[in-house]
C-alpha cells in the first residue's frame, strides 16, 4: 500500500507534506498579487512625518484595539464613512487593518477628529469619552519620534517597490539632512494647533515628539 511505503521513507513523506500544503498559497494568493498592489489613481504616499507617526502607531500597537477596515455595511458607513477600498492601502507596509475593535475604526478618523481633540484624548481618554477603557499615552508627549528611520523607510520603499517618492529621496545622509527641515515644518504646522508647552518647545528646538507625528498620521487617515 502506498501509504505504508510512504511512512517508511521520510524523505518522500516530507516532500509529500510540502507539496500538499503548498497548493493553497499558490492558488489563492499568487494570481491576484499584481492586481491587489495597485494604488488608487492620484494617491500620494505618506510624508516622512506621517510615516514616523505610523511607526509610533505600530510601536504602541494601536492596531491591537483599532481596525482600519470599514466593511461595506450601512451600519459601518454610517458610523465611519465610505467603505474601504483595496487601492487605498497600496502604500501600507505593513497593512494595519487590525483584527479587533476594542475601540472604533480609524480608517477615516482624519475626517472627523482634529489635532486638538487627539491631544486631549491621548492624555486622558476617559475625560474626553466618559467610560472609555483606552489607556492614556502620556509618554508620547515626551518621547521623541524617530523621523530619521521614517525617512529611511521612505527611501527603502521608493527604491525597492517604486513607491512614488520624489527625486530628493536618496540613500545618503546628505539627502536626509536636506529633507529634515521639511519634516520639521510639517511638525510645526501640527504643533501650532496644540496647547502643550513642552511639545511646542521641543518642536521649536528641532525635535518631533511622538504625539506630533502620531497626530500627523491620524489626520492623514481620510
Amino acid at each position, binding site marked *: 500500500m502506498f501509504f505504508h511505503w510512504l511512512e517508511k521513507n*521520510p524523505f518522500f*513523506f516530507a516532500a509529500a507534506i510540502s507539496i500538499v500544503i503548498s*497548493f493553497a498559497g499558490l492558488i489563492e494568493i499568487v494570481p491576484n498579487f499584481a492586481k491587489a498592489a495597485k494604488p488608487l489613481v492620484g494617491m500620494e504616499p505618506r510624508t516622512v512625518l506621517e510615516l514616523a507617526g505610523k511607526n509610533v502607531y505600530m510601536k504602541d500597537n494601536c492596531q491591537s484595539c483599532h481596525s482600519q477596515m470599514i466593511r461595506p455595511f450601512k451600519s459601518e458607513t454610517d458610523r465611519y464613512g465610505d467603505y474601504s477600498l483595496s487601492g487605498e492601502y497600496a502604500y501600507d507596509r505593513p497593512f494595519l487593518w487590525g483584527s479587533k475593535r476594542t475601540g472604533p475604526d480609524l480608517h477615516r478618523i482624519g475626517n472627523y477628529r482634529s489635532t486638538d481633540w487627539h491631544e486631549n484624548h491621548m492624555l486622558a481618554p476617559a475625560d474626553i469619552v466618559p467610560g472609555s477603557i483606552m489607556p492614556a499615552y502620556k*509618554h508620547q508627549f515626551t518621547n521623541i519620534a524617530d523621523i530619521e528611520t521614517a525617512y529611511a523607510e521612505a527611501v527603502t520603499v521608493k527604491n*525597492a517597490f517604486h513607491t512614488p517618492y520624489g527625486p530628493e529621496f536618496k540613500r545618503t545622509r546628505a539627502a536626509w539632512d536636506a529633507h529634515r527641515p521639511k519634516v520639521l515644518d510639517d511638525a510645526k504646522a501640527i504643533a501650532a494647533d496644540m496647547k502643550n508647552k513642552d511639545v511646542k518647545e521641543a518642536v521649536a528646538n528641532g525635535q518631533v515628539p511622538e504625539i506630533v507625528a502620531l497626530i500627523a498620521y491620524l489626520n492623514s487617515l481620510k
Partner: protein
Amino acid sequence: MQSNAALEYDYSLAKKFTFLTILFGFLAMLVGTLIAAQMAFPELNYLIGEYGTFSRLRPIHTNTAVFGFTVSGIFATWFYVGQRVLKVSMAESKFLMVIGNIQFWIYFVGALLATISLLFGISSSKEYAQYQWPFDLVVVVIWVLWGVGMMGLIGIRREKALYISVWYYLACFLGIAMLYLFNNMAIPTYFATEGLGSIFHSVSFYAGTNDALVQWWYGHNAVAFGFTVPIVGMIYYFLPKESGQAIYSYKLSLLSFWGLMFVYLWAGSHHLLWSTVPDWMQTMGSAFSIVLILPSWGSAINMLLTMKGEWNQLTDNPLIKFMVLASTFYMLSTIEGPIQAIRSVNAIAHFTDWIPGHVHDGVLGWVVFMIMAAIFHMAPRMFKREIYSKKLMEAQFWLQTIAVVLYFTSMWIAGITQGMMWRAVDEYGNLMYSFIDTVTVLHPYYTIRTLSGVMYLLGFMMFAYNIYKTMTSGRQLTEEPQFRTPMA
C-alpha cells in the same frame, strides 16, 4: 543488542524544555490575566509607565503563549516522544545532543530578548509575527537546528515505519518553516540606506491587501501548524500510552492527517471576510473552513473512540480526564471556527470578543490541557518518581475547566452583544448606539473573563507546584511504568 531490549533514553533535553514550558506558560498566563484585568479596570494600565499599557503587553501575551509556551511544549514532547517511537536514544549520537543543546540555549536567550524587544515597542506589527527581523533570524536558526535534530534522529532510527505522531511533528516543522519565512519577508531600512535610522526597523515585502492575505495565510496556519498539528501528534502518542488502548482506526488517522494538510491552508482568508480581498478568495476561505470540520473531527473522534470500552478510566485517572477534555474542546473549537467563518455570522462576530473567546477555548481547553497532560505523563518517566499528588491534579482539573467555560461563555455573550449593538438601528434607520455604549456594556463580561484568567493561572501554578514536588520529593520508582502514570 537485542531488538526488544529496553533502551535507555536520554531525557535531558526533554527536561530542559519542560522547565521552559512551565516558565513561559506562567508568564503568558500572568500577562494574559493582567491585560484581561486592564480591559475591565483601565486604571491598571499605566502602572509601569509606557511599558504597562494594554497595547504593549498584548503581543507579549500572544507571542509568549505561541513561541514561548507552546513551542517549548512541542520541543519538550518531541525530545521525549521522538526517541521512543523511533526506538533510538539521543545519547547514541553526540552530534544530535550537541545540536539539541545549542537549540535549547539559543531558544532560551532568543525568546527572552525577543520578549524584551516587544516591551520596547520594536515590532513589525503583524499579529503573531511581531518580532522584528533580527529576532526573525534567530527564530529561523532555532527552527533549522530543530529540523536538523529531527531529521538526524529519523536518520538513525531503528523502527522503520514512522509512527503517526512523527507525521505531525514533521508537518509542524515544515509548515511553520514555510509560513514563517514567507510572512516575515522584509527589508531592513538601515541596510537599504547609508545606515539611516534604527537598525531594527524594516518594511514588509508586501503592501496593503497583499500583506493582509499573506499575514492571514500565516496567522491562521500558525494556529494550524503550531496549535493543532503538533498537539494532535502529542495526543496520538500520549493517549494510547496512558490508557493502554490501541488507536481506534489507522484509516481514520490517515484521512485526518492528509485531510488536515490539504485543507487547513485554504481557510486563512476567512480572517478577511468583508474586507478588500477579492470575493472569490473570501468564499474559498469560508468553504474550506467548513470542510475543515472533517479532518479535525476525524482526529478527535479517533481519540475518543480509542477509549471505547475503557471509559471507566475517565473516572479514576485524572490524566485521561485531561486528554479527553482536550479532545472535546478541540471538537468545540473546530466547529466554532467554521461557524464564525460563515459570511453572515462573521459580519457580527468579526472585530468582537467572540474571536478571542474562540481562540481561548482552543488554546486553554485544548493546547494547554494536552501539553500539561503530556508533562504529567512524562514526569515520572523522566524523573523516575511518582506524581506528587493526584488530589492536587484533580482540583487543578476542575478549577481550570470551570475557568475555560467562564472564559468562552462570557466572551460569546460579549462578542454577540457588541456585534448586534454596532448594527442596531432605530425605527428611522439611524444607528442606535454610539461606540462607547458598546464598550461600557461589556464591563461585566470583562470582569468575568478576568476572574476566569485568575482561576486558570492558579490552576497552572498548582500544576507547576505538582511537577516541582514530583521532581524533588515524589516517591522514587524502581522501574518505568508501562501505561498508567503512577500518582500518590
